[in-house]
């Protein structure tokens, strides 16, 4: 498969920079300054190296492959047995800030600076071995400018987004995304419906797991699907051949059977087509073969963390692409409109078959109306998974789905994730952990019954939800 281990960094690739646990997605472009973890550099020298290579930033911002990734060894590994004799007076380091700056300006490498700091610390030798290690690690992090360039994947991009821009992905934690992919039985050859407002990250994860086999219909709100994160995966162009999109705002008319009639002539349709062409133009930007994804997707100020509820993000992106588009040739636009219209019809046709193999929802919207309508397009005996940052809307969704019927094995869950430090004699869970990764509601579709109370089977109902036995004749509230 393309992009597996051993692939080389090429100009135009989507790549991910890594330093310790920090990631950043970038486009590999020549003569383009990158700022990452307070370091600036150019990627030119990285081109041609294998993914996974670690580089050191040298003077002038050039990358140089690092020879050995060995630990700094203090020549004299003398260590105190405890810290009872250390008096903290803030005077233990003899090198001043100016001294260090002078070393840096001379182009002295980070590793050497750390060594000098150790030699000029009056208390280093009295520290316990543990404290010495801690000190070295801290200083290394500060002064050694080492980065690794890795190939993007769901693992890396979902970790990166959760750490850097959780607001853009509705705080969907990577392990929660992992659950979704498994609970949704995502695999090659299926027909999936994906409704997400997670910058296209969930879509990308589904595409990775489907490996280009099968088809995906992405449901989108507003002017067009957002696929900024999808672009970061660097998928081959063929992966997009069976990726369709369909506007949420047409779902009800599709379900009621009025969609085809209104498609060709009405003014409303013009609007739609325009919207879609915007969606596509943005979409196209994300395909590396045509135009490499700009660094922009992950290049916003990391301190400015947008709220998950912020509805303006998409508008901004939309307006931006709109301005660009205005400069485009009208002729070209019309061809695109025609293509868009064709794809829209294809997407509608796929949905109309009502035989999708699954549904994945991960959005900023209330999940209940989405589920109640989109489940109509899913075949029986297929899994569905809904993510929500909050538990309360899924409680309501659970209740409404039980009233609706046609679904079994409903499960509301959450995962706890804990990372560990495993070091000789110093193993323990990491001192900080994520407070929450969001909630999932999953279930399996079954053949809906016509005109029969879903709760006729008393025992079944009892087993499914012991405390609340709301019975209702099956009727679709959407």
């Amino acid at each position, binding site marked *: *498969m393309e992009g597996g*281990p051993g692939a080389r960094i090429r100009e135009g690739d989507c790549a991910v920079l890594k330093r310790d646990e920090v990631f950043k997605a970038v486009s590999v472009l020549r003569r383009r300054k990158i700022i990452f973890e307070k370091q600036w550099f150019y990627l030119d020298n990285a081109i041609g190296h294998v993914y*996974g290579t670690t580089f050191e930033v040298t003077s002038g911002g050039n990358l140089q492959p690092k020879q050995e990734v060995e630990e700094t060894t203090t020549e004299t590994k003398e260590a105190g047995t405890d810290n009872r004799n250390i008096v903290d007076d803030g005077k233990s380091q003899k090198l001043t800030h100016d001294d260090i700056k002078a070393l840096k300006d001379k182009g002295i490498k980070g590793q050497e600076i750390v060594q000098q700091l150790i030699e000029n610390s009056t208390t280093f030798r009295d520290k316990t071995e543990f404290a010495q290690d801690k000190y070295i690690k801290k200083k290394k992090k500060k002064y050694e400018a080492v980065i690794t360039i890795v190939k993007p994947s*769901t*693992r890396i991009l979902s970790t990166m987004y959760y750490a850097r821009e959780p607001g853009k992905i509705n705080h969907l934690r990577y392990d929660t995304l992992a659950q979704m992919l498994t609970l949704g039985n995502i695999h090659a050859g*299926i027909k999936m419906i994906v409704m997400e407002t997670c910058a296209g990250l969930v879509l990308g994860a589904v595409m990775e797991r489907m490996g280009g086999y099968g088809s995906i219909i992405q449901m989108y709100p507003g002017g067009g699907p957002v696929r900024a994160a999808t672009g970061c995966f660097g998928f081959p162009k063929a992966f997009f051949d069976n990726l369709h999109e369909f506007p949420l705002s047409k779902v009800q008319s599709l379900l009621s059977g009025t969609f085809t009639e209104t498609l060709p002539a009405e003014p409303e349709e013009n609007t739609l087509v325009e919207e879609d062409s915007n969606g596509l133009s943005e979409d196209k930007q994300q395909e590396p073969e045509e135009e490499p994804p700009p660094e922009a997707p992950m290049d916003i100020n990391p301190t400015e963390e947008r709220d998950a509820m912020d509805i303006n993000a998409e508008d901004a992106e939309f307006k931006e692409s709109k301005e660009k588009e205005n400069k485009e040739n009208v002729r070209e636009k019309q061809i695109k409109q025609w293509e868009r219209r064709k794809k829209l019809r294809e997407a509608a046709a796929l949905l109309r078959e009502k035989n999708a193999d699954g549904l994945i929802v991960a959005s900023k919207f209330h999940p209940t109306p989405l589920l109640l309508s989109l489940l109509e397009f899913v075949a029986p005996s297929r899994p569905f998974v809904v993510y929500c940052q909050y538990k309360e809307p899924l409680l309501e969704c659970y209740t409404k789905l039980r009233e609706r019927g046609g679904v079994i094995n409903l499960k*509301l869950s959450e995962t706890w994730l804990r990372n560990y430090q495993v070091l000789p004699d110093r193993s323990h869970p990491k001192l900080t952990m994520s407070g929450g990764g969001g909630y999932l509601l999953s279930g399996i579709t079954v053949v809906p019954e016509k005109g029969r109370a879903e709760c006729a089977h008393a025992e079944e109902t009892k087993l499914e939800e012991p*405390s609340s036995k709301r019975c209702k004749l099956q009727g679709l509230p959407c």
Partner: protein
Amino acid sequence: MGLRDECAAGDGCMLRWDCGHSGLRGTGASTELWVTSSANYRIVTMSFVEYGDTIKDGDTAIVFLGHESMFPVKVQHGTVTQTKYGVIRHSTDLIGKKYGSKVTCSKGGWVFILHPTPELWTMNLPHRTQILYSTDISIITMMLELKPGSIVCESGTGSGSLSHALIRTVAPTGHLYTVEFHQQRAEKAREEFREHGVEHLVTVTNQDVCKNGFGVSNIADAVFLDIPSPWEAIGHAKSALKAEGGRICSFSPCIEQVQRTCLAMEEYGFTEINTLEILLRVYNVKTISLQIPDLGKAAEDNSSTGFDSSNPSHQGSPCANLQQGTVQFKSGVPLREVVGHTGYLTFATKSLV
């Protein structure tokens, strides 16, 4: 919870490749790829890696009785299956029906018949060992960066819970090499893979991975270890992985195993060594009623309703005090006792040198 109505190994169930089935919906290049790499296809009735619409003779289906109560069944003409709701006759009740249908049993109760998935299998498979569940499987799959086409090595096969999930993810162009040192188990796993239509995607080897490795070298994208002494297999894992690198994961219940494994990984030059633990919390959705306490009346509304005036029947009855209003709300209530530990997962990367 054992597998019922098993088709005994070698009893001549006809397996065939169901071409009419719409499992592969990709077009153009994708389809070609599939066909190109599918030289070792067996003719099977159904498959765990591909959805079918209707229940067919020879399928493994899941009989769903109610919340988390289900079992797998091997569909066979002329066979009957007993459930607490009565008998299911395969020929008339199952074969030809749509997956997801409600089937009425002889006693009038009904069940749903579900298409198998690796996740349903995990919940219903016959336990030959402790198994991995979907929560751990999910993070293993993502953190090993598995996808269609990946080559994976696994040991031990155990009850095949993870194996089915791995095969599902790497299909149709990848492969699983799974090593099991217990002969009975290895054979049972082979049989299950055959019955589930995925044998072309998996190679089961019966040997000791710590002594003999995975039987392959420099071809794997990822290696997974769930054995008592994973540190003894790290060297073999490294040589099974591609020369250019790949990912490894080791699952161990005890921290001492993790400590030794991490040391071995470091020794063999693995990087990005990261140990984590993941736990599932399931919430029951319940409607809760809380009573509003009776705080009596203030002076102003002394004349309003209350048990003093409205319930003069029997003085001193404390029940009257409790005739209060209640507040109702929906709550996601955790189970009283939950899984507190399955194991530690240690991931690492084999770097190119």
